[in-house]
């Protein structure tokens, strides 16, 4: 018996169409999840940040996080990056002779990194055991160690490298910023926002934070404006000279949008943030999965077809 090339190609073409369908739909289909109306978040304004790291101390206290040493002198908490011991960090950008703040060339700037609480979080989509969840009301992304199997797919998936793993613990867990939701239930606000002395980190409903961010985008550099401190609705305000904002609200659409929004005087890719398409990668992966596995219809049909094919061969064998 000769291999029927035609048969083979027919089968191949069939399988290819089957497998192409999801890919095509992933490109064409819906753009993932949309913002929740009551979502809570942060607005970080790099131009107001003085790099004092008060938010880092406040974060460690509020979340009972251990001190992290770097370098040989074990004297004070000085993490070099986010880790399983550090949920929030202020980093600095420097270029040339760093003389002027918030300037890209021969300047410097600060950037705060913590969980972005994505509108369509990759970690939540990726987690096989539902250990990462997004609160249906506040949109806060939190972690449940009792569900987690420690596969670390959340780390692979997160475009911001936020979930951290306890590598030196035989019984490890994932660690990430949960927007101090243990404080929120007591009517308090996230520690980084409540302790920030300049209003660089502002807490509030995301829809109000977006309005505030838009307002700052229209400010004329060099003129004086009022800036709320700690909370976007706060009566406590400070007057600052508006800096030269780049015209971009990071997190408004990036990666499908985030609930941590950022303003800066230096382009965000220079500050170490990834440039992401407006559609989340989680939505693309889910579209592929859902096209193939919705209601398990395709697999069940395929299974039926295979049973028929196998029986046919077995029958031939007996004859």
């Amino acid at each position, binding site marked *: *018996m000769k*291999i029927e*090339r035609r048969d*083979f190609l027919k*089968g*191949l073409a069939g*399988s*290819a169409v089957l*497998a192409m369908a*999801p*890919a095509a739909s*992933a*490109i064409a289909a819906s753009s993932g999840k949309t913002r929740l109306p009551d979502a809570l978040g942060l607005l970080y304004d790099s131009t107001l940040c003085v790099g004092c790291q008060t938010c880092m101390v406040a974060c460690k206290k509020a979340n009972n996080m251990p001190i992290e040493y770097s370098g040989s002198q074990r004297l004070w908490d000085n993490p070099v990056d986010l*880790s*399983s011991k550090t949920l929030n960090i202020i980093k600095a950008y420097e270029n040339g002779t760093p003389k002027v703040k918030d300037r890209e060339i021969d300047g410097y700037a600060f950037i705060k990194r913590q969980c972005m609480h994505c509108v369509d979080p*990759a970690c*939540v*989509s*990726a*987690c*096989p*055991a*539902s250990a990462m969840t997004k609160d249906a009301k506040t949109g806060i992304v939190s972690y449940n160690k009792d*569900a*987690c*199997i420690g*596969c*670390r*797919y959340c*780390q*692979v998936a997160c*475009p911001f*490298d936020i979930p951290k*793993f*306890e*590598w*030196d613990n*035989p*019984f*490890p867990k994932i660690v990430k910023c949960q927007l101090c939701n243990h404080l929120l239930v007591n009517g308090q606000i996230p520690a980084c926002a409540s302790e920030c002395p300049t209003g660089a980190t502002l807490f509030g409903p995301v829809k109000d934070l977006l309005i505030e961010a838009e307002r700052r985008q229209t400010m004329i550099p060099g003129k004086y404006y009022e800036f709320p401190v700690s909370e976007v609705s706060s009566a406590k305000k400070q007057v600052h000279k508006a800096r030269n904002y780049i015209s971009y609200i990071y997190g408004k659409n990036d990666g499908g949008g985030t609930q941590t929004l950022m303003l800066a005087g230096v382009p965000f890719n220079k500050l*170490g943030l990834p*440039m*992401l398409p407006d559609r989340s*990668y*989680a939505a*693309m992966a*889910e579209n*592929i*999965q859902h096209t*193939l596995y919705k209601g398990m219809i395709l*697999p069940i049909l*395929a299974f039926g077809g*295979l*049973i028929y*094919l*196998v*029986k*046919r*061969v077995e029958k*031939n064998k007996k004859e």
Partner: protein
Amino acid sequence: MKTEQPLGGRILTPAFLICGLLFLISLIFIAKRFIYGLGAVSNLSDGYPWGLWIAFDVVIGTALGCGGYAMALLVYVFNKGEYHPLVRPALMTSLFGYTLAGVAVVIDVGRYWQLYNIFLPWHMNLNSVLLEVALCVGAYVAVLWIEFSPAFLTKFGGENAKAFMNKIMFVFIALGILLPTMHQSSLGTVMVVAGSKLNPLWWTPLLPLLFLMSCIFLGYAIVVFESSITGSRYPIADESHLLEKVSGVMAWLIAAYLVIRFADLIIRGHLGLAFRGDLLGNMFLLENNLLLIPMAFLFIPAYRKNARVMFFCAVSIVLAAVIYRFNTYIIGFDPGNGWHYFPSVGELFITLGIVSLEIMAFLYFIKRLPIYRRS
């Protein structure tokens, strides 16, 4: 009619003992991992949370175990009953590849004592690609052992049980084709969510299609490779006429794969990255040339009769599919922020130990169980 028979012979050969030693060494590192944590034996980090174990033991290990799937596909879907002699040896390799991938997962996951959570419906996240892979691979390991059970039952004389198994076997054969189609493609989808962290030479929404196609030609190549090796050492029936035809199939499948791979890169406008002369570009060229060259040889019928050429083609195809998976999971993956990864000694030894266990099981099975048809 020829039937499968044990090949017989001594079990404790030098090769077997060396593998045994390597396996014992790996146990030391495995113990260390469970006592002190993953950081104590591995170079895994928050930037590279997945390394050698996931990329090699699981993703590549199961792909190398696709011989059984590829042969079953040929026999049952394309109705080529003549290939039946190739199925059982292929199935056995699949059995080990998949079972040990399961073992590797238990070593790799951080909270292994909660691993059963993925089987509890209230914990399942139906959006998770990895959930689909885990459930599918788990089910397939069970199916493989069932499909393989006639070999045991022949050996241990369970004739009634064997007759019963043969009656219901068609269900498991069908599942044995369905499940790998699902999870081998999903192993590609797994990296779709990595998005901007995966180099555009490898990131594409077509990842599931490319992973599926490549696991099939990899499966064929493994069957050719294994028959050549086993055939040169043990008195098994000559199957070269079958292998010759399988190779013709491989050439076409590889051609289709390469057309899709390159068309996708051209359409997305990233083909230029391949020719920049950097590590990633060169890895891409290596991966695809290792397919292009054997494909060219296999299209020429005269070469398909040449056992040596066939063997080298099979090796090249296996390497290509393996490198493709390394590229997608590790080399092309860049979390940014200056993270680097190269497997540690501990990681290498644990992987080596698992592979050794696989070889030991292979040697034992072909000598004691009816796997191959003797000449």
